[in-house]
């Protein structure tokens, strides 16, 4: 009877297309909004993921990565003394103003890496050599800095600008994940960063560390917390802490959540109503099938097959459209769009819920259907 069910579904082309459009729209809306939302969340913790280190040691009261609370310079040695730590290096992170040759000012995030190891350096370099950062006055920009500070015509390898009245010379351009605030990132060595920034009592922003091989990162993090009294997080924990801060302190979660919920409700309403109408209008046919010996179970199976067929088709088309949208608008990382398998799985579960709900209200109608309807 699967064949009959599918022919019935595809035969009523107008309703099939209406169902398909409803479900496609719902899937597209949920995937598109979910991907943008998750893309934004990725951006919000880009200043963590761009450095790609396993352990972050912070002030114990830190809320998120961009809210730097400096710690005492002894922090590095204290972390190095914790059992299970393979290495620990200082990181400076702070806001400064850059003054270009044309007199234009731009706010930048200055990131100072330990010069001996350059731990925390970006993985991909678009232009120049990152190692040249060790040369006098050398800095490396990320590609968003180039974009924000006037484009490649204004800022390129060899460009000289001022940081706090001191010279900075661009030696390389790095490729990084765009950050939530999209403030240009300027990399230099930790020691040179200390020369650029105004004098402060505490200048150590973070300590970056790694656990020894064979030791669980979580255990080392816990030991650092206990033995130093500092905050310590795995990269993932710090990322989530930042994401949760953004969700709690901005309207992003509610805004996107509302849109995603609307997509779910609209999808369910359209699919449920259209599917119910489809069943009601075919009630005589279903009654005839029942009279001919089709059990309620057989009819329920037919309805479920119809619902899941149109649902999975809508899922495929919806994801396809959302992906095309993402490809067209977010290619190059200019817009936040992260279509992850977890999101697609969640949307699939939501869609199956919509289809099951739609099928159930039709099945209830059919279960109560007296086949005697065919004689009326």
């Amino acid at each position, binding site marked *: 009877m699967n064949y009959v069910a599918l022919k019935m579904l595809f035969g009523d082309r107008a309703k099939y297309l209406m169902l398909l459009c409803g479900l496609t729209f719902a899937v597209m809306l949920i995937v598109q909004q979910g991907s943008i939302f998750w893309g934004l969340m990725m951006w919000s913790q880009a200043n963590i993921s761009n450095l790609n280190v396993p352990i972050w040691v912070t002030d114990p009261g830190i809320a998120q990565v961009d809210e730097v609370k400096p710690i005492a310079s002894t922090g590095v040695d204290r972390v190095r003394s914790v059992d299970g730590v393979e290495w620990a290096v200082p990181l400076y992170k702070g806001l400064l103003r850059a003054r270009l040759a044309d007199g234009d000012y731009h706010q930048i995030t200055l990131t100072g890496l330990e010069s001996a190891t350059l731990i925390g350096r970006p993985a991909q370099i678009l232009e120049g050599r990152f190692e040249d950062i060790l040369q006098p006055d050398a800095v490396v920009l990320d590609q968003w800095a180039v974009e924000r500070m006037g484009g490649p015509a204004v800022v390129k390898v060899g460009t000289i600008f001022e940081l706090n009245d001191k010279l900075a010379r661009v030696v390389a351009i790095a490729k990084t994940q765009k950050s939530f605030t999209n403030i240009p990132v300027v990399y230099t060595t930790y020691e040179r960063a200390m020369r650029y920034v105004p004098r402060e009592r505490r200048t150590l922003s973070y300590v970056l560390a790694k656990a020894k091989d064979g030791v669980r990162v979580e255990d080392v993090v816990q030991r650092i917390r206990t033995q130093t009294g500092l905050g310590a997080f795995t990269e993932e924990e710090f990322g989530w802490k930042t994401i949760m801060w953004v969700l709690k302190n901005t309207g992003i979660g509610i805004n996107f959540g509302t849109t995603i919920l609307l997509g779910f409700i609209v999808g369910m309403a359209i699919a449920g109503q259209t599917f119910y109408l489809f069943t009601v209008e075919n009630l005589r046919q279903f009654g*005839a099938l029942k009279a001919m010996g089709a*059990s309620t179970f057989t009819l329920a199976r037919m309805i479920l097959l119809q619902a899941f067929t149109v649902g999975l088709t809508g899922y495929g088309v919806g994801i396809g459209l959302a992906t095309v949208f993402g490809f067209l608008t977010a290619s190059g990382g200019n817009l936040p769009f992260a279509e992850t398998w977890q999101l697609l799985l969640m949307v699939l579960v939501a869609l199956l819920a919509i289809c099951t709900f739609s099928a159930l209200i039709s099945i209830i109608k059919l279960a109560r259907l007296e086949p005697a309807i065919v004689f009326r």
Partner: protein
Amino acid sequence: MDHHSQSAAVRARGIVKSFGTGDTQVTVLKGIDLDIYLGELLLLVGESGGGKTTLLSAIAGILDIDAGDIDVLGVPLSALPAGRRTQFRGQTMGFIYQQFNLLPALTAAENVAVPLLIQGVGRAEALRRARILLDRVGLGERAEFLPKNLSGGQQQRVAIARALVNEPRLLICDEPTAALDGPNGQKIMELLRDVGRSPDRCVIVVTHDSRIFHFGDRMANLTDGRIVGIERIGQEGTV
């Protein structure tokens, strides 16, 4: 035809059926006793609202009765559980409706194959047998037509082929000619009469159409919930 020498396909005794409750309760069948025999075509006639369709539904086992017993082909239908009754209906009964009730998305052959598919017959075999039946009702060349591309008479012939495809012993027809013109109605009745003449089958036809009375072997008159007369019909169609 001597009924004492025939087996009863349907034996109904004391059938009572009411709808509604309290002051609005209406008793539609008020103690029906009726035997329908193998090898006959029984016409069920009477005024509208007299209970013909209700009796037909009760005999088909698609409507629960309040009192009485119905045996179909020796099986006490009202005692069967719902699932078993549905299965029994699928195996032994065929249905022809006033409005044909063909599935619009299926071709003529696919429509005819539906009862076989319900019984679990494979699609290729079901379609093969469906095409044979369509040949028998003169629609072999239109097996791949959708119902919307067939005339009313052709659609009813498809419905007859569908009703016969699983070789039912009891054929239940509700106003099979009501939506057809005179000549088409006559052709349909000729087909049903041929089925009814098979010694191991019987046909029940509810009708208001006096033009087809002469196709029946007997005619039962159901008025106000009671059988008020059963008459034999002569060879010339005279009662």
